[in-house]
């Protein structure tokens, strides 16, 4: 499937690397990729990819082929993340939680609450300066859910 077709300019295609009803703890382990269309603060299911192959190349190719704007996943190795980012898919790694909770947090721009242990800090977990917004944006923000460049401070 191609996720780029019929998109308006504010439309984003969100991809979640899943295991059962939660995010897979490791991107390479995820047997399912769930796709969601994000338009005007609404998140609608947009497809599903089953990935029996554990070949990282197959996964990255599938995500790139379906035109995902964002990938939200658990732990991911640096080379896979670079490959996806170079192909234009922004990766939001080291996230954990149930799928509905993660989607809701994405919508409300508070994914920092779902960051894996050990990654709650400035520049941790391969994020460099790409932390998450520490505060919620206004409800009418045009780009809800996009990670900002403001590093979050470690929550105690």
């Amino acid at each position: 499937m191609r996720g780029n077709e019929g998109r308006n300019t504010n439309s984003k295609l969100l991809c979640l690397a899943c295991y059962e009803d939660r995010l897979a703890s490791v991107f390479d382990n995820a047997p399912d990729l769930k796709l969601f269309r994000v338009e005007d603060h609404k998140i609608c299911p947009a497809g599903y990819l089953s990935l029996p192959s554990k070949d990282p190349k197959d996964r990255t190719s599938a995500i790139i082929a379906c035109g995902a704007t964002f990938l939200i996943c658990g732990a991911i190795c640096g080379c896979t993340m670079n490959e996806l980012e170079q192909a234009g898919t922004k990766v939001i790694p080291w996230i954990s939680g149930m799928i509905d909770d993660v989607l809701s947090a994405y919508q409300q721009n508070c994914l920092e609450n779902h960051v894996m242990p050990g990654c709650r800090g400035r520049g941790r977990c391969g994020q460099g300066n790409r932390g998450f917004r520490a505060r919620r944006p206004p409800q009418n923000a045009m780009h809800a859910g996009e990670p900002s460049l403001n590093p979050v401070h470690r929550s105690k």
Partner: protein
Amino acid sequence: MKFPSNLPCSAVLDSLADGVFTVDRDWNITFFNEAASRITGIPSEEAVGSKCWDVFHSSLCDGDCALRSCMKDCGRISNKSIFFIHADGRKVPVSISAAPLVDADGHLIGGVESFRDLTDIQMIRREVEESYRFEDIIGKSAQLGKIFAILPQVSKSEATALLLGESGTGKELFARAIHNLSERKHGPFVAVNCGALPDNLLESELFGYKAGAFTDARKDKAGRFELAAGGTIFLDEIGDMPAKLQVKLLRVLQEKTFEPLGAVESVKANVRIVAATNKNLAELVEEGKFRQDLYYRLNVVTLKLPALNERVEDIPLLVNHFVNRLNALQGKDIDGISEDTLHILMRHPFPGNVRELENILEFAFILCPSGFIQVEHLPEYLQPKSKESTPHDDMPMTMEEVKCMAVRRALERNNGKKMATCRELGISKDTLRRTIARCDELGA
């Protein structure tokens, strides 16, 4: 002996070099020792209370959990090699052991997993493998060791070298090594397969031609000898060289000159010649198929390259080398091959030598997505055969018939080698001979 109840358990566990963590029945981490924090980079206070898969994020999480399987089966897992992803995006190889935890009444209360960082061990292993590398040739066997010992001296001399070895033993690799270790290393290395080109084409390829030498020769063409000036020319499959060209080659060796087709003047041959063949040149000389004088000219320094089945101990090194190489070429991340797969390879006779091993691994790479190459990823001809049904299997047999069947199958397994069959069956050579004769009489 019981563990003393007054000892501070966590202090004992914190003193270990291996990471240790425990989980309750809901997979929440209940203890995370100091080594676990050091190896994973996750502070204990952040790990405790979290789900184990959010902390350890290993290749077994999300479906293949070691703790889950041993808590389910009340068994133990020891020294399983996996990797986890470190916070900095590195894949860290670890060896894990896991066991269920039970209380005083024998009720399951959780599990314990210990893990050891294998990064240093892998680094040391890589360094050791490097020490078994000579240029691009991999091996630690005695046969190769002897060649490695003399190769530098052979390379430094200008003498013609003759490489003898079966197909796939790496003759071109050795030729390149000789070139790279010689004074001519900055010059070109030109390889020619004498068996791959028709006679007339081979001649023009080797010696070149002048414009007008024959129809369609509109301009001069430099031959391989000219292209290799200042360097090394590698004449592969020299045993297949036609008689007419053998004379011309002999002249190059004797006078260090050659004449391109249609030329009136000789050209100086500033090349070092390395020749190779998988044929028995001495036999070809006896049969009159190869010039004796050329043979003696070529046979100044001879290196006999061992077949792969003569250096079985090099197979694991070669497998690692090819896995790393194929990973780099194909952008894959195969960890290696499983023990049982390696056993199959170690027992295979490899008629195609190192080239066959490389092809086998290339095939396995197609079928194996990640992790370790397993038996099912090997080509069909290497798959263990299920016990073939024979007409005898479903009907009653006499003891003699059973003996015959056992002997026949053992001979098959040992490729007809009688001594190996005797060793397998635990019988003498005479007993085997008598049994075979009796079986032939019975037609069994």
